[in-house]
């Protein structure tokens, strides 16, 4: 109920605000250039309070303007200076501390926070809630809390609010859930019904709902070891608790007799008992195929896998096991009359035995040539002797290396080659730098 009303209110406010902003902007343009302020922030109308605060003597204003200009550069500079030393969380925190201690009025904190937000991924703290809270803490407390209904009705301290919303938005994009501290800080800084508070509430409404929406979550940190990664991927593809992962060969470097160095690729495969059963039932006169590579994206990582499959059995080849009346000691397994199911759909569906043919096994390797895959097949043959009689054909596409290169080229163009399809995880996680127009538009819409 209240939600649409709020939205409506906000919209009218926004309209009002925009027109007001335009007026104020017109009035102000000559005196204050605000050259570095992002244009998008304009849609917040300045509150009467802020307008009042602006009416300081021109001299003072100029000085502060100069100072801010200067400080703006120093914020980025500060981070860059530190960055030369080490890009760590401790360093980042130190910069924030330096800023907060430098000036009791926290002059230029908005710019500082924007700068800090930009630098977060660089310092590897973009997923750290405490850092976000620390950044929020940079805002002076109670100053921006509206004190009367007029202030509350209009946008009180719009740039500050906008900045805090931006901070929350970055948290959102990285999938970081705010905590109680965040809320307390926001209340202290902006009051109960401010825009950042609303943003916080929206995040708190949706985040818990979406937290476990992906039934197949990918861990934030993928295994480093390629074999472990392959194991993880194979289990993910096969999704069968009975399936067994076998490492057919570990990656290693060998020196041959002639002195050449040969790097052996790793080969990791997976097969489930039901797949083994399907394979034993396979008609040995028909070939099986090794196909691949097929890509599998895990967040920003792409890996490739190969499958061993066969064509679907011909319709006349499908032999139904003859009914043996002497099979079950206790009850008839089949009834002896001629009546089919009425309107009942055949709901049976076998994950492995598909119309496009059964898949018998899957493997991953870092070298997708025929020789390597042949090794996999011979490894499989130990547990599936039938493979010895079945002709195996290799239908391999361009190797993953080339594909890797392709992906690299693509990523240069796009930054996010995985595109929408790869938003497997529950939250988008773009670099804030590459946040496109769309994002901005969306964030505006939310406000």
């Amino acid at each position, binding site marked *: 109920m209240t939600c649409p009303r709020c939205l409506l209110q906000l919209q009218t406010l926004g309209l009002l605000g925009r027109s007001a902003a335009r007026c104020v902007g017109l009035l102000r343009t000559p005196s204050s250039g605000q050259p570095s302020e992002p244009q998008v922030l304009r849609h917040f109308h300045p509150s009467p309070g802020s307008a009042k605060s602006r009416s300081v003597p021109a001299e003072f204003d100029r000085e502060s303007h100069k100072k801010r200009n200067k400080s703006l550069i120093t914020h980025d500079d500060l981070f860059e200076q530190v960055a030369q030393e080490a890009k760590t969380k401790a360093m980042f925190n130190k910069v924030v501390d330096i800023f907060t201690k430098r000036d009791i009025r926290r002059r230029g904190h908005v710019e500082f926070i924007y700068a800090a937000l930009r630098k977060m991924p660089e310092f590897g703290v973009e997923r750290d809630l405490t850092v976000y809270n620390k950044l929020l803490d940079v805002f002076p407390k109670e100053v921006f809390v509206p004190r009367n209904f007029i202030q509350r009705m209009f946008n009180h301290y719009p740039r500050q609010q906008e900045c805090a919303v931006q901070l929350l938005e970055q948290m959102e994009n990285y999938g970081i859930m705010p905590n109680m501290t965040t809320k307390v800080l926001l209340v202290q800084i902006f009051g109960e019904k401010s825009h950042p508070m609303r943003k916080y509430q929206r995040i708190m409404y949706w*985040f818990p709902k979406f937290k476990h929406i992906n039934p197949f979550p990918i861990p934030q940190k993928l295994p480093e070891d390629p074999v472990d990664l392959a194991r993880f991927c194979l289990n993910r593809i096969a999704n069968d*608790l009975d399936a067994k992962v076998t490492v057919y060969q570990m990656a290693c470097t060998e020196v041959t007799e002639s002195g050449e160095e040969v790097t052996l690729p790793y080969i990791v495969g997976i097969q489930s008992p039901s797949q083994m059963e399907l394979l034993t039932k396979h008609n040995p006169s028909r070939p099986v195929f090794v196909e691949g590579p097929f890509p599998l994206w895990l967040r920003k990582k792409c890996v490739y896998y190969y499958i061993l499959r066969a064509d679907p059995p011909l319709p006349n080849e499908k032999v139904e096991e003859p009914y043996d009346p*002497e099979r079950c000691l206790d009850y*008839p397994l089949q009834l*002896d009359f001629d*009546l089919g199911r009425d309107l009942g759909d055949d709901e049976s569906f076998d994950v492995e035995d598909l119309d496009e043919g059964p898949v018998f096994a899957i493997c991953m390797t870092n070298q997708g040539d025929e020789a390597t895959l042949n090794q996999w097949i011979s490894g499989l043959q130990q547990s599936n002797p039938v493979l010895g009689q079945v002709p195996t054909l290799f239908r391999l596409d361009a190797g993953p290396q080339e594909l890797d290169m392709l992906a690299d080229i693509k990523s240069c163009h796009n930054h996010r080659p995985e595109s929408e399809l790869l938003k497997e995880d529950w939250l988008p996680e773009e670099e804030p730098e590459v946040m496109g127009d769309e994002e901005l538009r969306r964030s505006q819409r939310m406000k």
Partner: protein
Amino acid sequence: MCGCGYVHCSCLTEVFPYPEIGNEELEEINQLVAPVEKFFNEEVDSAKIDHEAKIPAETLNGLKELGLFGIMIPEEFGGLGLSNTMYARLAEIISLDGSIAVTLAAHQAIGLKGILIAGSEAQKQKYLPKLASGEHIAAFCLTEPGSGSDAASIQTRATLSEDRKHFLLNGTKIWISNGGFADIMTVFARTEVTVDGVKKDKISAFIVERAFGGITSGKPEDKLGIRGSNTCEVSFDNAPVPVENVLGEIGGGFKIAMNILNSGRFSMGSSSAGMIKKLIELTSEYAATRKQFNKSLSEFGMIQEKFAVMALNAFVMESMAYLTAGMMDRPGLADSSVEAAMVKVFSSEGGWICVSEALQVLGGLGYTKNYPYERYVRDCRILPIFEGTNEILRMYIALTGMQYAGKVLTAQIKEMKKGNIGLALGMMGKKLKSSFGVSVDLGLIGKDGVVHPSLAESAKKLEQNVSLFGSTVESLLYRFGKTIVDEQLILKRVADLVINLYAMTAVLSRASRSISIGLRNHDYEVLLANTFCAEAFFKNNYKMTQLQKHSPENNDANMKKIAKALLENRAYICSHPLERTY
């Protein structure tokens, strides 16, 4: 009950009037029962048997002297030669000790049954006398590590030796009752047979003596209940079995196994009833003497209800068991295996409820080893498991009926599916009629009715249930046809319905007879019969309403979904209630 289009239970003439035995037989059985009862009350120390997990030799000797090892072996072979009915009567007393009951049942209900059913004259002459006297003890070896009901996965193999005089047995059998000391075993194994020039593996049955050699028994299993009975693994390592020890013919083992299993079950009804009757005596004593708030326990409604439940169950079990036994004793080879299965399912589940209620009457005392209740609870738990699990037996009950109904109704349903309007209208009329409560007259009540008028209300309920059941089965066949085999949840309800209908029939038949011949306390029987029928009527109606609905409505689909999610993950998948996401 032929009118319902779904005949399970046998026709009216078979269940009405309730089967009787002759006066001489009655006298004979009473003479037999008295010493057995005395023996069990005085000589058998069940607590000790349970504690030591062994039946003492003197107890076994006592049983042998009483002739209890050869109850059903004909007198010419030295047994008691009793009928099924009399066997059921003895089972009531034998069941007072679970371990002894299982030992004896493994010996004669399944162990030597093969020789009785399919043995040649020579085999009978050779083995039965010693088995009847208890000098030799028999066991039944069918189950294998990889094979319960699935005959195709039996791995034990019998190969003919080169001189064609012996079979060599190889394989392992598990959960063999009496396996540790049995001298004679009925063993089922795979043999190669040539059918129409094609070599095939078929199951054959063999009489194997431990003395043949090559047989080893494993350690006795440490069980929850029936601890005094011996259950262990038996392995055969090139055990030589002479060709004349093949039971029946080579490759005919499947039928023999099925017959033995089917015939061994009926006595469980009277066994459970015997046990419950004993428990009623024990607990009512306690309920009458224990006082709370200046009232004895027996004055509390909830305690009274427990006793009523026990009495009802015992009454129904008895009625079903002796009706079935009587039907089996009738001359001619009527197949009563479905009825026996129904008795088994009903009595094993009812027995479990009653034993646990009896324990509940005593509360904490019942939970201690000072009283026999906990032992009864443990012993009783085996009943739904062995001799065919209740799940499997429900399938058997339901599918046997469906097979029959399917044969009768196929043509009619096909016509209807083709769109025969006349037939469809006729069906609709029938349905309308039954929905107004006009049921098919089965001839139970009325001028020539077989049910006593004081049970008329209950008989009417039975008739109503039966006619509705007929149309329910028809609609099930219409909906699922042959594929009903895969609809286990539906089959379970069908089986429960059939069991209830059979139970209703049995109590009506028994109570009618009791009134007619003026048995003592027959008014109490009428009360029990009416109470049971009223309860079963409601249960049946509920089940049939569920059956007429499709799976999303009767929760079947949900149940399957719930189970599937768990089984896919092999764990309980709900988040912990203390878990949080923010």
